[in-house]
């Protein structure tokens, strides 16, 4: 069976996520879909699986046009999707068997009041064994590992007559042996004449498992090639295309002493053996793709997650962080990726947000607040950062993403730290605000502060940093001077090349 998507366009407020995108795949093959962050891979697959319905364009199965208006429509046509966040699709306190036949249970075709446990378990066992997965259908899903949960979801997808199975970044959270097991199942599925569509950032594994590769860029189709006829280098070139013009501040780094260094740092989970250092006045980049462990590393450096092994030194002194409060006291600031959940207090006013990390600067006597001083400082910050807000008393939830981010950064400018950690600071920020944020960060370095800039936007890493650490699968895989590298090399390294 042949699947074709033609002229697919979709708009979100302020963004054209897909622009006449094209995609084509065959059953019985594994098909890679790749592109830089924001290229529209996931959006395209959400259109195919019926999650987004306000698109234009056509979908054809074997040359016949079909309409997909809901996930249910997609399932009826034999199109199934397994998301990276497996837990959202599983019911943890039910058994493997129940979860596998969940869709059928919900449909209740037999119209019976009682559960037919025998058929639930025999059906589930049959599907599991056909995929050669060794799981008991009686096990509770809450007791499974992440990889096993994925297997359960894949098994559920193939209970119905599945023609195309979309795997959205399935290997990001998996270990090497688990990935091998997943690949074996992909092979099994190909044998069963299922078309597997594989979204991943890890190029080497795509070359291992897929037959074809489609590259997307800026919401549009670039090229489809047989894996056998291409190379990682060619794919990276297609992903990047023409470099985007970005406005980065011109700066001459004045490097001082080593401000902060880590040795063999691990969190016992994702982050393994990280050794890095940053000097006064230096901006270092932590470049890595989604799921590479940037956020985990940043939180570890800020004391938000406990460290398992390794050591940290700040200004030549050993540093022990048992919580973020310790980090703030030591002079470390952190602007987290999840802005609305972690970076700002959306239900509080601008002034409360700006002073939250430096309350002690605004006390009159004992613990009494000096509201006047607090408001004056907030107004000063709003002007300095160019925050667009009606007043200091506006609730932060009413500001745009870029202005919220300026607030999240501004609160640390008031507290005056020595080391600033930024995790994806430009995520969901419009172009104008982006430029302001780059200027801010450059300004920090000019004042002798140290900056760690973690991002998957490799062009930004190239534009703003002095030195780059590439992170892959929770480990630093390479250290480079920014002037000696380019976006292409960073992407190559970030996708597991060496």
């Amino acid at each position, binding site marked *: 069976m042949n699947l074709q998507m033609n002229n697919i366009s979709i708009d979100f*407020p*302020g963004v054209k996520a897909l622009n006449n995108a094209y995609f084509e795949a065959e059953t019985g093959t594994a098909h890679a879909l790749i592109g830089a962050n924001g290229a529209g891979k996931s959006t395209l697959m959400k259109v195919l699986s019926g999650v987004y319905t306000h698109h234009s364009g056509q979908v054809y199965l074997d040359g016949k046009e079909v309409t997909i208006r809901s996930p249910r429509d997609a399932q009826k046509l034999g199109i199934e999707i397994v998301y990276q966040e497996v837990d959202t699709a599983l019911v943890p306190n039910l058994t493997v068997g129940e979860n596998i036949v969940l869709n059928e249970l919900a449909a209740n075709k037999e119209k019976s009041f009682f559960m037919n446990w025998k058929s639930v378990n025999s059906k589930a066992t049959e599907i599991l064994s056909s995929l050669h997965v060794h799981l008991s259908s009686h096990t509770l899903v809450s007791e499974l590992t992440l990889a096993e949960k994925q297997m359960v979801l894949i098994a559920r997808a193939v209970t119905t007559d599945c023609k195309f199975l979309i795997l959205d970044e399935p290997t990001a959270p998996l270990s090497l042996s688990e990935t091998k097991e997943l690949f074996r199942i992909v092979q099994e599925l190909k044998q069963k004449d299922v078309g597997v569509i594989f979204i991943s950032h890890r190029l080497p594994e795509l070359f291992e498992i897929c037959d074809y590769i489609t590259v997307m860029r800026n919401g549009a189709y670039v090229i489809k090639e047989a894996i056998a006829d291409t190379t990682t280098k060619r794919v990276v070139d297609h992903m990047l295309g023409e470099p985007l013009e970005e406005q980065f501040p011109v700066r001459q780094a004045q490097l001082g002493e080593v401000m902060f260094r880590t040795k063999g740092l691990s969190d016992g989970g994702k982050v393994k053996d990280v050794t890095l250092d940053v000097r006064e006045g230096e901006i270092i980049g932590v470049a890595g793709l989604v799921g590479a462990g940037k956020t985990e590393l940043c939180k570890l450096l*800020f004391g*938000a997650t406990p460290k398992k092994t390794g050591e940290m030194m700040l200004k030549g002194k050993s540093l022990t962080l048992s*919580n*973020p*409060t310790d*980090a*703030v*006291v030591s002079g470390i600031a*952190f602007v*987290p990726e999840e802005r609305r*959940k*972690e*970076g*700002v*207090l*959306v*239900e*509080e006013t601008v002034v*409360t947000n700006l002073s*939250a*990390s430096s*309350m*002690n600067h605004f*006390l009159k006597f*004992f*613990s*009494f*607040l000096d509201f006047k001083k607090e408001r004056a400082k907030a107004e000063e910050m709003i002007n300095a950062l160019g925050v*667009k*807000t*009606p007043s200091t008393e506006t609730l932060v939830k*009413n*500001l*745009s*993403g*870029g*202005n919220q981010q300026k607030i999240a950064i501004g*609160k640390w400018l008031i*507290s005056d730290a020595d080391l600033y950690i930024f995790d994806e600071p430009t995520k969901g920020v*419009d172009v*104008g*605000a982006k430029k302001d944020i780059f200027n801010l960060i450059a300004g920090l370095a000019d004042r002798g502060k140290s900056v760690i800039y973690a991002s998957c936007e490799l062009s930004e890493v190239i534009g703003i940093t002095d030195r780059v650490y590439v992170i892959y699968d929770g480990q630093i895989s390479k250290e480079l001077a920014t002037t000696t590298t380019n976006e292409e090399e960073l992407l190559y390294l970030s996708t597991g090349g060496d």
Partner: protein
Amino acid sequence: MAQLNTVRPKPSFNIFDFLYKYGTILLIFVLIIVFAAANPAFLQTSNIITILRSISIVTIIAIGITISLSVGGFDLSVGSVASLANAVVISMFVWYSQPTLIAIGIAIAAALLVGAFNAFMIVKVKIPDLLMTLATMFIIQGVALTYTRGATVSQNMIMADGSYATGTISSFFAKLGQVPYIIIIMLFTVFIVHIFLTYTKHGRYLYVIGGNQEAARLSGIPVNKYKVIAYLLSAFFAALGGVILASRVMTAEINAGGPYLMDAVAAAFIGFAVLGAGKPNAFGTFVGAVLIGILANGLVMMSVPYYAMDIVKGTVLALALALTYYKLK
């Protein structure tokens, strides 16, 4: 996109917002007018003092709940803690002939132990606050009952060995529960906590934690420390309420503090909306307690039987919750 947000909110008159901000206070005036029309005695000074006296204990306990609500928590155990403090303070006088300050001190220390237990289970063991304090509520109710051996503690009571209890309650202690002291203590409590929550760093931290715990933590605010403080303060004010209750009735009845829970919760939730604060606050809680007090007093004057009073109070709580959560939508 940034430009869109510079549009100022329209200054149009919104009837819901107006009612949300001033509805409680308007309702209080309406009730006063209705009750005064039905019975002119309602507006007599003596009756107004009666109302204020009747809400004193509720208000003090509700202030404790307000603090636990400010960190996004909830303390259901305040009624039991008040019972415990009541039992301990009376028994210290009657059974052990202790001086006033020692008796009060021990009662409050016992309550703080309960607060510390709650805080530990909620902050460290990570049990949801509502469930944990529900458990504590029953535990402490049982502890208070066991301590008093299921009997009412009072002066000259018959002890287990058949003799009479010889201890007496000091006259200073007896004054605490009388007008005007009881009302002064209540107003002082409201004032101090209002200042604490609104004008100090600590109050700001409590609200910030209540708003978004993770963002507060990543701003470097010691979240756990402040949650512990909140539950300790909640227990402290519950104990203060229990001690005043003891002084008012001069005995320790079985589960005497229990009935105050519902009124206190209602007062705190009504307080959310007062003057559009949108969050738990001491002044609002006081207004909430006044509303409940007027309602109860007026309805009794209009010969509504006392056993029907819970219907009214429960309904008021439901309405206050409806207002709060509808607004959050």
